[in-house]
């Protein structure tokens, strides 16, 4: 396993990503696809889609700052190379979700003010905890926070959103699909690189587990805020989809939950349980113990 770092090359990234699943895509989806009329023709749904997309942009901006900041902190050339490719992945994610914001009707000059206004405060705090480690040049904590906690959360959030969108909004679903493919590499790097480093630096566990607990607290608070605010728009979207026959035969199952009929509470529960379960498993594999947030969110 000593040579596993050698696989992290720009050439490999080029073959898999730009020359692979992103070939012939425009902003992450087939050319010509548009946001569905159900969203663009209904002000409540359009506003709700903008609010959701802002959270994705806020998360991806954090990932971009973290991955680029970790390049200089990386202890070896292969990790620097991988993080350079991840930096471009994250920049692409910021771009494609920002493009979606514009497609949803936000003027380009209003993008930043919209993100500032609508980004969930708990998600902002989640990012601050991680970026503090990155600013300190703490490679191990930074990669755990970025590639295990943040990417682990994003992986499940994107999967859930893709499951709800693939029959109703192919443009958004395709955008998410390419993002999920990127996330696979990112979580893989997190586990594979940190798995060996934690064994070499067991004294770092306490500090890193505390960071994970803090990030988890803000993540769960973000989920609670977002889902509690989305009940009306979710019902409206389902009603429109049902009226247009778009739910007939739609496959919207995710981790045993039918997303076409689940309540917002059920959706929050399946997402939180999935993410926390993945945290526990991933952290356990690399020699860290999952630590519950100090106050249940």
């Amino acid at each position, binding site marked *: *396993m000593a040579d*596993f770092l050698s*696989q*992290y090359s720009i050439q*490999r990234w080029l*073959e*898999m990503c730009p*020359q*692979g*699943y992103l070939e012939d895509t425009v902003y992450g989806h087939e050319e010509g696809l548009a946001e569905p009329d159900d969203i663009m023709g209904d002000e409540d749904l359009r506003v709700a889609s903008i609010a959701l997309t802002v959270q994705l942009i806020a998360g991806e901006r954090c990932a971009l700052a973290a991955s680029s900041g970790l390049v200089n902190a990386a202890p070896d050339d292969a990790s620097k190379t991988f993080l350079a490719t991840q930096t471009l992945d994250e920049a692409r994610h910021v771009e494609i979700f920002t493009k979606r914001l514009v497609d949803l009707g936000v003027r380009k000059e209003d993008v930043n003010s919209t993100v500032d206004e609508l980004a969930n405060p708990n998600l902002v705090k989640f990012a601050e905890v991680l970026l503090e480690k990155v600013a300190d040049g703490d490679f191990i904590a930074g990669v755990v926070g970025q590639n295990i906690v943040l990417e682990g959360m994003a992986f499940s959030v994107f999967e859930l959103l893709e499951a709800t969108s693939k029959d109703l909004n192919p443009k958004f679903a395709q955008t998410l699909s390419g993002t999920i*493919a990127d996330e*696979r*590499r990112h*979580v*893989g*790097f997190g*586990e*594979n690189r940190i*798995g*060996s480093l934690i*064994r070499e630096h067991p004294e770092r566990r306490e500090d890193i587990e505390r960071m994970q607990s803090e990030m988890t607290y803000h993540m769960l608070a973000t989920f609670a805020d977002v889902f509690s605010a989305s009940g009306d728009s979710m019902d409206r979207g389902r009603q429109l989809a049902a009226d247009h026959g778009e739910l007939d035969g739609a496959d919207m*199952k*995710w*981790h*045993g939950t039918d997303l076409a009929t689940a309540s917002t509470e059920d959706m929050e529960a399946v997402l939180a349980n999935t993410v926390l379960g993945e945290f526990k*498993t*991933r952290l356990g*594999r*690399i020699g860290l113990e999952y630590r519950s947030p100090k106050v249940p969110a």
Partner: protein
Amino acid sequence: MNETTLDTAESSIVTSSADAAPRRTFELDDTGFKEVPKRWRKFYRHWQGAGDELAPNEVICPVCKVVIRSHREFRPGDRVYCMPCMSRLVVVERPDGRLEADVLY
């Protein structure tokens, strides 16, 4: 003595001489998995979640949840490579007889 056979995406199947029976072989078709270069795509497929039963020549990557497929059935001790997340894995048998993959760090 062990025999190593190059198989799936940069993976190898290590066949122990203690293997009791010959391994079954499987034809692999393209499942539409586009996350790796074309020549490797038949070795992977998306996992469909609970209820998606794995064939004897398939294991799930525990890191990225992609199903890894081989021309031959898997046995404990086989080493496989998950190209989508670049993890190196070893096939292990759980107490209930299920084959799963553990990550090699």
